[in-house]
């Protein structure tokens, strides 16, 4: 049973445009969400996170939005750059737990 779902395996956008990556979750006990970015042959790197008490967190070109009622979060990248081309994974964790639960990832391609 997938608790964290990323239903789009891939996304392609033009350089300079907005990239929107989506993530849904089923477990209402999750109270913290993270986005990781992964380049080929490298490990995932932390990108941005959001607590369940917030609905938005911004860091430069990256913004994460959380809609708790819909159990949905999204990552916005504005403007998108070719160097942003990577696999983006959504992850969630319950308070008091050591275990991150990851989605399958979405491969983003930013075309010059």
């Amino acid at each position, binding site marked *: 049973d997938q608790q*964290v779902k990323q239903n789009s395996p891939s996304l392609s956008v033009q350089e300079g445009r907005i990239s929107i990556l989506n993530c849904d979750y089923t477990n209402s006990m999750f109270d913290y969400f993270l986005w990781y970015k992964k380049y080929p042959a490298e*490990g995932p790197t*932390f990108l941005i*996170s959001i607590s369940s008490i917030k609905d938005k967190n911004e860091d430069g070109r990256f913004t994460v939005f959380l809609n708790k009622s819909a159990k949905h979060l999204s990552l916005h990248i504005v403007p998108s750059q070719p160097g942003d081309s990577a696999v983006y994974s959504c992850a969630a964790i319950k308070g008091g*737990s*050591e275990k991150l639960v990851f989605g399958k*990832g979405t491969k983003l391609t930013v075309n010059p």
Partner: protein
Amino acid sequence: NAGVTQTPKFRVLKTGQSMTLLCAQDMNHEYMYWYRQDPGMGLRLIHYSVGEGTTAKGEVPDGYNVSRLKKQNFLLGLESAAPSQTSVYFCASSYIAGPYSNQPQHFGDGTRLSIL
């Protein structure tokens, strides 16, 4: 500035062979984790450790053993490798667990393991 280092990067085994994957971190992190990633799937937690001398099972622990004899090292062992264990293995570490924005997990670059 090594962070999390995994050894080896690639390995091919025959069914039934054993091996140990090594993870080393130089950030003085308390928590360490082993994940596997298979095509079309998200990272799945195999085992983790909340401190030196401790280990605990994750989501998919069967067929694996782990040890954390030193704080900086976390070993993943396959006693009798099976083709189903062909995967990319990632190690991660964090200072503490739980939902703290400045304490995310840091990952190594992975070990690609093929079992024939």
